[in-house]
């Protein structure tokens, strides 16, 4: 009986209440959701960077990271040589490890894990920023680039949208 009375009491007001609620919520305006990427370093102070990657394929990895930073980062200029002026040195130590798994039938399966530590120093050797990234892949060729992509993303130019 109480349930029926409650149902009767709710019968009309609930849709109306929902309408009022929706209008009240809508009247408060659209949600404000800001997506942002904060600057990893002060890109105005450190506008140029020299990239040095220490790995098995140092030359190609250095070139790859430098290109990624040119495309993505907040640095105005990116260089791989010490003959050009730079305000920051980004040193990366990259290692790629192969993990081989053998199942009970004796067949093998490989996966690759890449780990990188990086440190950004000013010309006086003061550490401005440091960190580490890791990633894994079934393909050897991809894993180093994936880890370097993560480092480039860390230095992405800041935005608020």
């Amino acid at each position, binding site marked *: 009986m109480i349930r029926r009375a409650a*149902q*009767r009491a*709710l*019968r*009309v007001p*609930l*849709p*109306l209440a*929902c*309408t009022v609620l*929706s*209008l009240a*919520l*809508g*009247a*408060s*305006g*659209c*949600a*404000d*959701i*800001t*997506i*942002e*990427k*904060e600057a990893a370093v002060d890109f105005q102070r450190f506008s140029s960077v020299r990239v040095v990657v220490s790995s098995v394929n140092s030359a190609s990895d250095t070139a790859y990271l430098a290109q990624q930073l040119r495309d*993505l980062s907040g640095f105005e200029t990116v260089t791989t040589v010490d003959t050009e002026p730079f305000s920051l040195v980004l040193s990366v130590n990259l290692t790629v490890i192969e993990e081989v798994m053998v199942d009970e039938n004796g067949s093998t399966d490989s996966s690759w894990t890449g780990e990188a530590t990086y440190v950004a120093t000013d010309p006086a050797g003061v550490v401005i920023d440091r960190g580490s990234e890791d990633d894994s892949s079934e393909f050897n060729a991809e894993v180093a680039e994936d880890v370097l*992509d*993560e480092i480039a*993303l860390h230095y*992405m*130019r800041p*935005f*608020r*949208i």
Partner: protein
Amino acid sequence: MTWPPWLCGLTALGSALAVAGAARAEQSETTTTTSTASTTPVDANSPPNGWHSSPDSPEVVPPPKFPLLLALQAFAVTNKVMAGAAGRTGKYWGPRFEVSLLGTIDPVADLGPFLGNQFGLYIEGTPLRWQRFDLSAGLGTDIYYLWGINSDLAEFTLAAEANANYWVTQSIGVSLGVRGYPLHTSGIAPGERRDGTAGNPVLISAGVSWRSE
């Protein structure tokens, strides 16, 4: 106050339907009273498994073997466009999946208008389920995969949400949802405007729903 035209339209449509439903509920109550007086149950003329118009009528339609709800929905976000689809299974409890496209109508330098996708995964319960109206609440996550900006960029949120459906027909209805993000990663700031000032943290969605019979 920014008030997108589509939300205006949908809210107005939902409001009109809700008011119409309320009026119809009242009419149904009157009919029931009259029929009771003449000892003829109003449901006697209803087809088997018929649809009761009163919002609190007992659910005479047996639950489908595979309860499914699909919805097309749009979200009201300042300076952004966010719209997509949602799916829900389970009669009283079940998972809810969402996917939306996310863009901005006010892009900044170096970034285009397309930002990426929102993916939602919730566990949702439906404590209120009438013939014409149901209300669900859930807890889950909204993942903003911002591949329009960078393929490695994603932001994660813990989300609490509620969704209401008003069923215009037995299987087609309009929906209204609200959600908030009590926890989130550092790259997304709910309730914060682009200039850094505090804004509205409540995300409203509206759309059209379909449910299996």
